[in-house]
């Protein structure tokens, strides 16, 4: 038993030690991103972005992978992440939780973002300009619960068109977790209809990952603002005056098509908090934000 007590004391001492050792103020800029597609490749996807920022900013930059949209918001809020590639909704949530934080850049495509409603071929649904009311009674999957293009916006437009809550419209409503998975599930027929981020859809179609005989686009939502880079308000204090501007410039200067393909965007442009007001309003109307 003495042995055991000894071990346990040692253990507590070490925990204490590890805490002290690692709570020293980090000069590394840590960033994260919402896990919106293929989760096995998150590190490859953003690891090189970290290297780029490191070079541009002249300070160590690290990317940390996280498992859920909410976890990115939490890490941002807890100061464990200072910069993040958010979706429209997660960005709005994060900026509400961290006063002073700012949206600094968005993809060229992001001010006019769309969600594609896709359907398995067995449903017989075809592409139309009008909302396809034939989706009623089918099985349906969103992406992640916290996604803008995979959940918030499609839910809003579906409920608006059908004048009913989604769980009444569809026979079954699921959450696939991310956009790649939504495509895979609708393609395999696990769900008949799904909502997917149009950029991810186009990218996967182009890469030949989608069997367009089995799954196809049936409707496109109106445009809305989506992804953006958001930075904490206190970074200037940590890394010196003008740091926010410096990060912004680095992002806007990102021209390497290889790196841009990771997002996937054709380039980055300036963004400000007010750009995302429509997202906040929609989230409030659906009840995700009180």
């Amino acid at each position, binding site marked *: 038993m003495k042995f055991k007590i000894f071990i346990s004391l040692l253990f507590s001492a070490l925990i204490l030690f590890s805490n002290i050792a690692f709570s020293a103020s*980090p000069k590394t800029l840590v960033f994260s991103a919402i896990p919106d597609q293929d989760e096995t490749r998150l590190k490859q996807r953003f690891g090189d972005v970290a290297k780029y920022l490191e070079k541009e900013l002249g300070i160590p930059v690290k990317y940390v992978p996280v498992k859920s949209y909410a*976890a990115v918001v939490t890490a941002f809020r807890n100061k464990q992440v200072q910069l993040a590639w958010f979706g429209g909704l997660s960005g709005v949530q994060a900026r509400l939780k961290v006063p002073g934080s700012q949206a600094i850049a968005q993809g060229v495509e992001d001010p006019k973002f769309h969600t594609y409603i896709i359907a398995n071929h067995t449903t017989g649904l075809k592409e139309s300009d009008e909302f396809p009311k034939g989706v009623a009674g089918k099985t349906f999957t969103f992406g992640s619960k916290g996604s803008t293009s995979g959940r918030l916006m499609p839910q809003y437009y579906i409920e608006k068109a059908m004048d009913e809550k989604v769980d009444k419209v569809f026979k079954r409503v699921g959450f696939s977790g991310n956009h790649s998975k939504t495509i895979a599930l609708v393609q395999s027929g696990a769900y008949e209809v799904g909502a997917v981020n149009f950029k991810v859809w186009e990218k996967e179609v182009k890469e030949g990952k989608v069997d367009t005989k089995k799954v196809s686009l049936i409707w496109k939502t109106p445009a809305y603002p989506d992804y953006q880079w958001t930075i904490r308000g206190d970074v200037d204090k940590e890394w010196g005056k003008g740091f926010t501007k410096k990060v912004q410039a680095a992002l806007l200067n990102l021209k390497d098509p290889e790196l841009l393909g990771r997002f996937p965007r054709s380039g980055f442009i300036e963004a400000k908090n007010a750009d995302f007001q429509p997202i906040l309003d929609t989230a409030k109307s659906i009840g995700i934000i009180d």
Partner: protein
Amino acid sequence: MDSVYKHSPAWNVSWLFIFLAGFSLFFSDIEIISLEPWQELKRLFMGLLTPDWSNLSEIGEAFLQTLAFAILGVAGGSFIGFLLAQIFHWRWIQISCAFIRAIHELFWALIFLQIFGLHPLTGLLAIGLPYAATFAKVYAEILEEGDKSALQAVSRDASRISTFFYARLPDLWEHFKSYTSYRLECGLRSSAILGFVGLPTLGYTLSSAFMEGHYSVVWALLLLFYLLIATIRYWVRPALLPLYIIAAPFIIANDSTISFDNVQRFFTEDIIPTPIMRGESLSESWHWLSDLLINQALPGIANTVVLTQVALVASGILTLLFFPLISTHFFKPAGRTLGHVLLVILRTTPEYILAYILLQLWGPSMLPAIVALALHNGAIIGHLIGRYSTEIQLRVDASRGLNRYLYELLPRLYGQFLAFLFYRWEIIMRESAILGILGIATLGFYIDSSIQELHFDKAMILIFITALLNVLVDTLSRYLRAKLRLRTNVDCRASNDYCTAKE
């Protein structure tokens, strides 16, 4: 015609549970949703034939993290649990421990993620806290039920500490040791599944690989995990433990920081119900609460109970099918070995992972959850009952085959079987709730949704309700066990089996 014959209480209770499960089944959603589930199953088995070890550094890292979190979490839990066991007779300690135990590690992880984020403390507390509460209870039971003859011989003047070390510990050491090492195995499973909510353990890599259908990677991870658990007795040695405990903090350390502000904010803002934070009127607050109760808590409770009852009876049925596989009364050694391998695989795979696999194949109805819970729990109890059956001496001219099963063994083992099953009841309920995170509409689904929408106040209320439901089932199970006089015998092995069944 009136019969003088009366059914035993065990018979009545069994049929009551079967009837309840049948009734629940009526309300449950057990459809196979995927259009091509067998196609996917085929791909899964192809993955088994071609495990992919190419990404060895990532796999190795995931295993190191899994081990380190498990070892530190269980060590910390056992130390605190041991201290708590000394004062476990205090009523409020018992109640708090019951409550902490009633909340699953994954829910604890979701809570601590909000407070400590990606800091290793999240994982350590998520394992350590509920494990401490379980250790406290079981250690206290060991102290209570163990042999006290040496104690009576000790002089009154002896100090408490030396009494403990000289008169109690030598008799109880084996109990402590074997239970603690058994819990380390559980800890490995817990640590592995914490990856599903974002800790850098096995579940992280596993769920990512699964998401993308990389089944060869999935099998590489699972096979390694089976190997790790199967060889546990070779690498867990008292002499090596200090080494592991010293190394582990370095493995799990990362450079994220924690601050007291976050802790404070969690308790003073995040979990305070929104209407109270905003100082809204009583009627508005009531509206908020009733909305939560009616639209989330009630359907969540109903589905959790339905799933639990069906899975409990299904586990019972599978147990009765499984135990002969490893019993000397039915199979020769070769056959029994196969039975052992099957049961070991089923009980080593965490039910969360089993359910996850089946969900990917069949889609998110209750069916995958029922099958996963029944296979895992059926294998655990089947293993224990199988071992008990082996000890039963039959007459040389005893009947064979089905008659032997029905008339010789089953009546002798039935009490033991029911006792084990009732011990698992609470555990099955805790798992049923947690499986909601995977998309089945049990309480876990609503808790996860609230957290994803950053409504921690709602999540905490739902977690509280889940814990209450668990405590209720635990109490009911204890009542039934007492009523049916299902008692534990306290030789070392038996008590360990009960612990195995319990946790």
